[in-house]
């Protein structure tokens, strides 16, 4: 049984704010869809708050600091030095939760290109993991992503439709994390809806068998 949720260590890194940007976006998108993990994150933040109370105090010059600060209270907040996400103002929609929409834009504007002729489409995103761009994958109902292994970890978040592999059944909001040791093929649910996945890979997919090798020649996996 796999969990269908990000592992505790990943949620903890999300709370600490130390995840690579795109993985952080994947986790935030999962959180929008998963009350259970939001409760987990709230618990981790509560623990961080308590540990903050116990952390070592480093004294400063309180009077000088307060003098400076009091003068700023009636002014505006200091401008955040970073710009908002590229699509922070994309209008709400049913498919993409806000954290992902902020980064990739409205789903109607996504530029899908064929990745598996007759079986699937793909959008390559600007950010990724370790130099490999993350992708959105759109696979047609009833199709299969041929058997492959992984050179590094692979993170998948289901946004629409669903698939199953030997570890279980994945639908909207579910996360699958696989390590290099996992070899699997994905069977897309045959229920009329395209399966849309956010996929982040820390290494290449390694095709297994002839069908997968052919798929890899055309860049499908």
């Amino acid at each position: 049984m796999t969990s269908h949720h990000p592992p505790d260590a990943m949620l903890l890194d999300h709370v600490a704010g130390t995840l690579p940007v795109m993985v952080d976006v994947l986790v935030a998108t999962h959180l929008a869809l998963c009350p259970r993990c939001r409760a987990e994150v709230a618990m981790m933040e509560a623990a961080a708050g308590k540990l903050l109370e116990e952390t070592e105090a480093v004294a400063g010059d309180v009077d000088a600091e307060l003098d400076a600060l009091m003068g700023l209270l009636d002014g505006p907040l200091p401008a955040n030095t970073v710009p908002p996400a590229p699509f922070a103002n994309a209008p709400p929609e049913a498919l993409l939760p806000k954290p992902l929409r902020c980064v990739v834009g409205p789903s109607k504007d996504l530029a899908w290109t064929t990745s598996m002729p007759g079986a699937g489409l793909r959008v390559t995103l600007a950010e990724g993991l370790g130099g490999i761009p993350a992708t959105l994958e759109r696979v047609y109902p009833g199709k299969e992503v041929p058997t492959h292994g992984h050179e590094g970890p692979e993170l998948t978040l289901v946004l629409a439709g669903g698939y199953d592999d030997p570890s279980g059944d994945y639908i909207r909001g579910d996360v699958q994390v696989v390590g290099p040791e996992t070899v699997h093929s994905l069977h897309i649910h045959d229920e009329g809806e395209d399966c849309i996945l956010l996929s982040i890979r820390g290494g290449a997919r390694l095709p297994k068998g002839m069908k997968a090798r052919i798929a890899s020649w055309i860049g499908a996996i």
Partner: protein
Amino acid sequence: MTALLATAMTWTMTAANEPTPRRTDTVLLAAVAEGDKQAFAELYQDLAPRLRGFLLGRTRGDRVQADELVQETMLVVWKKAGTYDPRKAAVSTWVFTIARNRFIDRCRKAMRPEPDPDDPTFVPAAETAPDTSLVEARRARRLHAALATLPDDQREVLIESYFGGKPQSAVAQDLGVPLGTVKSRARLAMNRLRAALEEDE
């Protein structure tokens, strides 16, 4: 008789010399939300030294940056005090998330996207027990008790993650243990905290 009198006098003197009881952060923050600058100054004295400790860890000891971030964080506290909900989190937890987000924003090219409860895709939690400050206080006490009794190696992993600003892989390197060990310590720690919260629920 004299002894009794002396005792009574000592007691009276102690009572007279005792400073006015310190207001808790929650009370102070409620006053700050009303625009009370004196309360803000008190809250600052209480929170700033620990925030500085936290941010010095995250900035790898950069005192200038840490001080700027303390100031930014406290300004956000002043501006947003009205949005703080004591039923949801302790003051220290709320302030931790503000400081962390200010730090992340500084490190990144773009602001960190967060789930938005008002977004149509947001899946709300099922209605559960009433969210009252009393329930939150009880949960907080149980969580604190569980934290206090965490084995040192599990506690260390949490502290390194939160305050060292290191991903689990770097924590593993620092502690000189395999990544799998760090991950399982994190998992064990979370199991204990979760179990404490689930008591009597």
